[in-house]
């Protein structure tokens, strides 16, 4: 199994989930993160002071899939999360050496 991990723009979560459901991937885990990268941050102004918010809100999506599905998953995420603007995010694939479903104890 592989753990496909993607950092995406927050408003793309639903699109990604739908794209994955489309070929039967019905589970994922979502984390609110903040990202630092080429996308330049927003400026907040409070009276005399400006703060450049360099850490921008992003969402991390983790999906465990069979090795056979990795390509499809990566492509699906890439397409669903794509806007073409800087800050769209990254996808990393990690190896899962072992997995288990807690309810049943069996591997996924």
């Amino acid at each position, binding site marked *: 199994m592989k753990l496909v991990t993607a950092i995406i723009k927050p408003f793309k979560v639903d699109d990604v989930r739908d794209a994955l459901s489309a070929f039967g991937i019905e589970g994922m885990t979502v984390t609110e993160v903040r990202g630092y990268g080429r996308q330049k941050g927003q400026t*907040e*102004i*409070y*009276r*005399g*002071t400006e*703060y450049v*918010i360099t850490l921008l809100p992003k969402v991390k999506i983790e999906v465990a899939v069979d090795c056979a599905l990795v390509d499809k998953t990566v492509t699906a995420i890439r397409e669903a999360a794509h806007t073409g603007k800087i800050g769209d995010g990254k996808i990393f694939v990690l190896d899962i050496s072992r997995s288990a479903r807690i309810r049943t104890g069996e591997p996924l």
Partner: protein
Amino acid sequence: MLHRNGNLALWAMGLALFATPVRADDPTLNAADTAWMLTSTALVLMMTIPGLALFYAGMVRQKNILAVMMQNFAVCALVTVLWMIAGYTLAFTEGNAFIGGLDRFFLNGLTKDALSGTIPESVFMMFQMTFAIITPALITGAFADRMKFSSFLVFMTLWSLVVYAPVCHWVWGPGGFLSAAGVLDFAGGTVVHINAGIAGLVCASMIGIRKGHGTENMAPHNLTYSVIGASLLWVGWFGFNAGSAVASNGAAGMAMAVTQIATSAAALAWMFVEWAVRGKPSVLGIVSGAVAGLVAITPASGFVDPMGGLIIGLVAGVACFWGATWLKKTVGYDDSLDVFGVHGVGGIVGALLTGVFAVQAIGGEGKAGLIDGNPGQILTQAYGVGVTVLYTAVVTAVLLFGIKTVMGLRVTPEEEREGLDISLHGETVH
């Protein structure tokens, strides 16, 4: 028929409050005036808790929110007891031109039937207490996020008695030398705002800048709280200004009206200036503007007409924007929540403009400013400002220096980094 709404009598009473001992000649209780003053007292208390507490709490980082609220709440309790013991008597009983006597030590002799003008003295004492509470509470914004709580309590105790009580006596007490000099301060421009603003500046300077100031992100955690706070300050300020008429009549109504107008004008002025200068009108900007307007109209609120209020508001909005941005940046002190930029600058603007816009049609015989043919009033006002600034600055500095020497002013760097909520009070907002 004249016995209760006779304008003459009421008027005499109104003047009496500012120019002569608070006890008027005709000791008759006016239940309607009392009703309004009971209400005003509740409104002004609401300005500090929860008003000011929220206004300030919304501007700090999450780790210091509770500590800010704690300071305001504790000041409220502390000053109440101090005012009962010694503050009220030092400010409002006969003494000399500089300080009152000890006739009302521990409120001794303040019976249920004692009157102050047309209202029970208990009510007058309470109304004034709420002013004595909010003034030191305002200062807390200057040293937010870094003062030791124990030192804070000691400082507030001393400051209340050694700075607030005398300045209050000079302006509003019987025989106070500033009121004798003709200084006009209807509801506390000098006593409350300049006083707190200058003390705040001194505090910010002496305690030093916050760790990370200018490099770390210190964006306000939750401006929703600040908007609630500013709103309650606005509503409560009707008690502050219209209550300072100490009567339920046209003087109170006009004070309420000019307060509303000046506040709105200042809020809009700050908003539009910020929009022009920085590209966006901010929420913190408009609420700061409103507070600036409230501050500036305070000394003028019983003396100017609606047009005067409008202009004072516009000027205050622009001046305080300048105070909280350009001035602070240029000089470089870290007045965390702009006590000086808003209350100091706004208070001075308001005090001086009272000397410009006061008209006898509103303030009564002899309360005239430049536009009513009395340009000299501006100098009188400047004199009042100067004396207050000087006294407050010096005495505040001395007090802080003493406390610093004896017990220190500031938390440790670790405590500051962890946040005062957990390090000083053992609690956090989850």
